[in-house]
Every structure is written in C-alpha cells, then in structure tokens.
C-alpha cells in the first residue's frame, strides 16, 4: 500500500530556488574541466576519468536538474532498475567478448 504514500506526496511544496541549480551547474562545469584535464594525463587516466567523473556528472543532472532528489522512492527505483539492467546486459555480453 505504499502507493497511497505516493498519492500523498505533494510535489509542489518546497521548491528549490535558482541558487541551488546554479551551484550545481558550476559543479558540472568544474567536473567537465577535471575530465578534460585528466584526459591529458594519458590513456589510463582518461579512462578512469571517464569511469568516475562522467557518472558523477550524470548523477548530478539526474539528482538535481531532473528533480530526482525531490521525488518519492518509485522514480529512484525506476532509474536504478534501468541502470542495473543495462549493467547486467553489459556484464553478460562481456562474458562472451572478453573471454573469446
């Protein structure tokens, strides 16, 4: 019956203001800068940068810009299930590619 909690969540209550989003935007720009910087350090660094900073950036966009922070658990689960599925597809595919 968690659904009725969903009904109750009133989305229009506390709205974050301009400032927060601008801060997030600045963080995104900085992270982009880091990513570019790291990619000059060589191939391995670039790949590590890709693997860590990019999801972080995407996470920020999801969490703040896409308001995931302010949604109930359902949407978070939806996103996690999707990413999890993709991750499993990826892993299983590599059980072939990487071991041929």
């Amino acid at each position, binding site marked *: 019956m968690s659904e009725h909690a969903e*009904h109750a969540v009133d989305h229009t209550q506390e709205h974050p203001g301009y400032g927060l989003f601008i801060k997030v935007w600045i963080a995104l720009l900085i992270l982009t800068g880091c990513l570019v910087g790291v990619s000059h350090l060589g191939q391995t660094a670039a790949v590590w940068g890709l693997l860590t900073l990019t999801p972080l950036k995407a996470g920020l966009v999801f969490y703040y810009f896409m308001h995931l922070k302010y949604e109930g658990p359902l949407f978070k689960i939806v996103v996690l299930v999707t990413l999890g599925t993709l991750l499993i597809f990826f892993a299983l595919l590599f059980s072939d590619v990487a071991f041929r």
Partner: protein
Amino acid sequence: MSAAPETKVIPSSLGPDSEGSTGASSVTQGSGHRDDFGSRLGMWLFLVTEMVLFGGLFIAYSYMRYRYPAEFHHGGGELNATLGIINTLVLLTSSLTVVLAIVAVQRAEKKRAMAFLGGTLVLGVTFLVIKGFEWAAKFHHGLYPNSAHLATLPPGEQVFFGLYFTMTGLHGVHVIVGLAVLGVMLWWVATDRIRQDRYIHLENGGLYWHLVDVIWIFLLPLFYLAA
C-alpha cells in the same frame, strides 16, 4: 453462490476529463484531481526507453572498443576535442536554463521563464550549429560512412567512425526533437497554458532535455577525450 468481492459504494466525481494533454483523463481515482504524478511517471518510463536505446549503443561501443583499442585511440585523435568541449558547456548551460525556467514558472515569473526557455533554444541551436561544422569538417576530409578514404583505414577505425556518426547523429536527432518540444513549451508559457499551478508539461519537457544532456555527457569522453 458466486459472490462478488464485497464492494462498497463511494460517490465519484469523475467524469471524462479532458484536462491536460499528455494524460487526458488520467485522474487519480476518487480524488478528482489531475494526476501530475502519473504524468511524470509516464515521462520517466519513457525516459527509461531512451536510456536503454542509447544504452544499446553504449554497449556496442564498448564491445567494439574492447576489440579495437588502438584504432579507437587513433580515431579519437582525429576528432576535434575543443569543439566537443565547447558543445558540452553549451549543453550543460542549456540544461541549467531549463531548470531555471521551471523555478521561474513556480514563482509565476512569466517573463523570466520565457527568457530562460528562449536561452535554452538558442543554446540548443548553437549546439547543432557547432555539431554541423564538426561534421562538415569530417566530410570535407573524406571521413564519412562508405567514403573512399574511410575504406582505406583499418577496420577498427571504420567502425569507430561508424559509431561516431551513428551516436552523435542520433543524439542530434534527439536535440532537434527536444528543441521542438521546448519551443512548444515556450509558446505555452507565453499563452499561459503553462503557469504556476500547472507546469507538468514543462517539467516533462525539461526531463527530456536533461536526458539528452546526460547522453552527451557520456558521448564527450567516449569519443573526444578517452578514446
């Protein structure tokens, strides 16, 4: 003998409700209220399909990259990283303006909301223009699928450029769709179809635009930086 589940009767104020345009009569049962949550849920589920759509391409990318690391490295070197980075900034900023437009609508600041949305449109078009120049340069150098020049490159590099054009191209298509959607939103804000107490469409349009942004966040390192 067969008994129906015990049903009590509650008065229902529901009629077919043509409010809103994504959901039509999507109404939370018994509340008589339009169901913004439901609309957002629908949108998020749609975004799921978009994520998986691009996810498929990312999987293809990693598969091929695993097979051809050197060729991908070399192919990446041919791309113009500066343009890629500029485009990232452009798109990030456009994402910001969308979300600010929502804040503005929530505060009933119509003019500002329109300005932010207009800014997004401009930035989106800028992105496309830069992308256009980038592609044009590639074509100019004979780097396009099936080109004679490409055929002389090692197989892995042909795949790299195949993926590059497919993924940035498909992303570009999404940018164009997103611009169209946000254009409509701008129109609706102007005509007060989107206003302080009803902005679910703007939110959904924004969600779409952010997702397009997120995809680009991944494309940048995959093609321009870490390849």
